[in-house]
């Protein structure tokens, strides 16, 4: 990973079109300003992960037996937990 040190208010660029500025920091948080073309999606990491997981789930949901596998797995789990009680 590339690591760069910047002071408050300073900026850096990613490629020609993306500009990042350090706006504020403190209290364990950093406030960052991003200038980027509309074609470049800017997402919180968590939202990116959720979106990627949604795409994966959507690609699997129809026809490949995810639901059946899931029902089977839930039955295994409930049998295991009732026999261990």
């Amino acid at each position: 990973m590339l690591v760069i040190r910047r002071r408050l208010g300073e900026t850096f660029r990613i490629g020609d079109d993306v500009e990042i500025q350090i706006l504020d920091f403190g209290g364990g948080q950093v406030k960052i300003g991003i200038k980027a073309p509309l074609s470049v999606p800017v997402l919180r990491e968590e939202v990116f992960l959720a979106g990627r997981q949604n795409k994966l789930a959507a690609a699997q949901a129809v026809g490949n037996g995810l639901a059946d596998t899931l029902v089977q797995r839930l039955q295994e789990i409930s049998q295991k937990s009732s026999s261990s009680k």
Partner: protein
Amino acid sequence: MNFVKLSRNLRGVRDLAQRMQVELATMMAFETESRQFGTVQYRENETVEFPMGLPAFENERRFVLIERSATKPIVFLQSLNAPDLCFVTLPLLVVDPAYQLAVTAEDLAAIGLGDLKGQQPVVGRQVQAYTIMAMTESGPAANLLAPIIVNISPWRDGRAALGIQAVRYDNRYAHDQLLVGTSC
């Protein structure tokens, strides 16, 4: 002329009209196409409107919740717009009965729950909560990072519920949590 009686009667008529409207709305059946289920009949009070869509599916706003006795407790989230798009979900508390919600104030406001004064909604009371399932190499996994939160109160009036996929800010839960034995 007895105005008290008259206004009481008018109120009665109005209440009756409202009740009939709700009943009519819950009686009216619609149809949609689903690649998973073929033609599906549904009522407005089985649908969920996502004002902001879902991450990576921002244009998909309307879904119907489908349950089948053979696949209980799975809840299928079928798009009313795209027959191909059907998520397999489980009630959040089935996957993790001890799950602690952390829905942001903005997300709560987006589904009409802006008046909770910093409190989290209670699953089963103000909201229902689901987690989207996906198959990973190690088995079926639940996205506990981003549960689907549904404000179900509009269903009582025969209208679509309001939903959001509420992505957490903390890293307390994983986006690919495997099902474990102790939780069910």
